[in-house]
């Protein structure tokens, strides 16, 4: 009996001597969720192929040249794999370049909003008091704005308009979401004992924020980045669809879908808008699946693996 209890307490084949590291947890979570793995692989192949093909194979000026002889060419005619639009421009080329533009813009917005949002969130959450109140007022105010409408108005007023002003305008409004999330997490983290211990030891505030708090909320940051990326793709394509996104001569997924506002295109020239819509839908779905898997790996109660 005694031997049995001893064995029960000290199992011999105890391989896991330390809790699984972050990457291992994420790995295990993905392995359990086949959809998430499939989505991740799909996304990576898609991104790589889009970036490679749009920079190497397709020339933007060639694609955007108006060729009257190929108006509304069907898929397969005249060498157009996906047909041509109302100005005779190759749809596949526009799809590739447009997808690349959308991804680049979405990545840029995500990165900028992440930097600003995380920095402000951490600082307000950590210091509290007056700084916290001040920024919370600002954030609350931004939350009450009809953001989309104001963005559209800005887009029409700003004089020198190109991709970068677009990214800046969007980042100006969307950093608040990230900041709010990070702030609430940083608030709870800052009250923990290990932070107090660090403060007693005399660690400078900046080191505490970036070397202690931030790594501990890194899982939240990763999930937030992923979902924010998906959201930004949606916003950028939506704005381009309405006509307030990229400048008119730049191909984008949203402008391709916008051609469907014409009833003729919608009903009979499906090759113009269906591939773009499908691409948007599939990419956003895939990113969401990956994001959900990441979110589950961060919260131990919801893990599958």
């Amino acid at each position, binding site marked *: 009996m005694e031997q049995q209890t001893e064995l029960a307490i000290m199992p011999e084949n105890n391989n896991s001597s330390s809790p699984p590291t972050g990457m291992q947890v994420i790995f295990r979570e993905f392995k359990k969720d086949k959809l998430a793995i499939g989505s991740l692989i799909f996304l990576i192949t898609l991104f790589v192929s889009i970036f490679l093909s749009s920079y190497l194979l397709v020339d933007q000026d060639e694609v955007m040249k108006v060729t009257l002889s190929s108006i509304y060419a069907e898929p397969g005619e005249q060498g157009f794999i996906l047909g041509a639009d109302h100005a005779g421009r190759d749809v596949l080329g526009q799809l590739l370049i447009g997808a690349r533009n959308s991804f680049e813009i979405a990545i840029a917005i995500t990165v900028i909003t992440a930097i600003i949002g995380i920095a402000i969130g951490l600082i307000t959450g950590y210091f509290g008091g007056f700084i916290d109140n001040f920024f919370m007022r600002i954030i609350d105010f931004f939350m*009450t704005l009809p953001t989309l*409408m104001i963005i*559209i108005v800005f887009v029409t007023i700003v004089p020198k308009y190109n991709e970068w002003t677009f990214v800046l305008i969007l980042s100006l409004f969307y950093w608040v979401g990230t900041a709010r999330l990070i702030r609430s997490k940083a608030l709870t983290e800052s009250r923990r004992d290990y932070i107090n211990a660090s403060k007693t030891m005399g660690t400078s505030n900046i080191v505490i924020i970036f070397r202690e708090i931030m790594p501990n909320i890194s899982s939240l940051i990763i999930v937030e980045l992923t979902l924010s990326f998906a959201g930004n793709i949606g916003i950028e394509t939506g704005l381009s669809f309405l006509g307030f996104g990229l400048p008119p001569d730049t191909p984008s997924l949203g402008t391709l879908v916008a051609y469907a506002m014409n*009833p003729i295109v919608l009903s009979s020239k499906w090759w113009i808008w269906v591939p773009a819509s499908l691409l948007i*839908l599939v990419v956003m*779905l895939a990113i*969401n699946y990956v994001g959900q898997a990441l979110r589950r790996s961060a919260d131990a109660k919801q893990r599958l693996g």
Partner: protein
Amino acid sequence: MWKTVLRRFLVMIPQLFILSLLIFIMAKQMPGDPFTGLITPETDPARIEELREMAGLNDPWYIQYYNWITNALQGDFGKSYVFKVPVAEIIGERALNTFWLSLLSVFLVYLIAIPLGVLAGRYQNSLLDKSIVLYSYISYAIPTFVLALVFVFAFGFSIPIFPTSGTVDVNAVPGTFGYFLSKVYHILLPAITYALLGTTAIIQYLRSEVIDAQTQDYVRTARSKGIPIKKVYTKHIFRNSLLPIAAFIGFTITGLLVGSIFIETVFGYHGMGQLFISSITSRDYSVITALVLLFGFLTLLGGLLSDIIMSIVDPRIRIE
């Protein structure tokens, strides 16, 4: 409880004030003013200057802001640059359309989401649950305009059961039952589209609530007393989960305002969202300003509504 309401209302006033100030400053940046629409080849520039002076366009900005606000509070938003009629008139006709669309959409959202959420929670991990969860993922990921386009294509052109644009049939005579029927016919597809997209939060929330509630003591007590499981779900679990959902109404309304821009544009439905887009395209700045102010105000109102319902429903959140 009324103290919370009053307090939230009072907080809203400075927010509105700052919002209107911001919008006013934005409006001042826009090129053009009410008189640019009146300039014809025969007008005398000096006369236009005189008109501008009389209308107070050369006054310092705070006086202009004060005039604008006092007028706006009385419902006078100035004249549309493009249509030459008072802005309030233009917005008024559209606002009613958007209002009906929103009402029907919110109703459909709850009609769809509540049964689905409860069912998903009750039969967890079954095929039904998995397909409902899949549906909520897809409806979350798909952009509004893509779904709207697909629906117009599928139900407007391929299987022509719904009209593709407009609020009402051109031939319908106002006041008759046929007119009413035609209006309903035109409103259905946009409302369904919106409802399908807005159900995500409610389904997820209800589903997790029901799953949690299944392990609660009061459910076990009820079962041990012999109450049939169906009644436990409908009378106990359902009611407990329902209250916070009512607070979602505020957020649903806010989401509606933004979504209306896309949905009304795609469906050609003459509501406020479509008015916004068309006035941006035609650079009708007085309408734009009034609309942005109105939407901002409605957003604030939606948040206030959510807070009020939350505080009614959950005594813990009431005045401390």
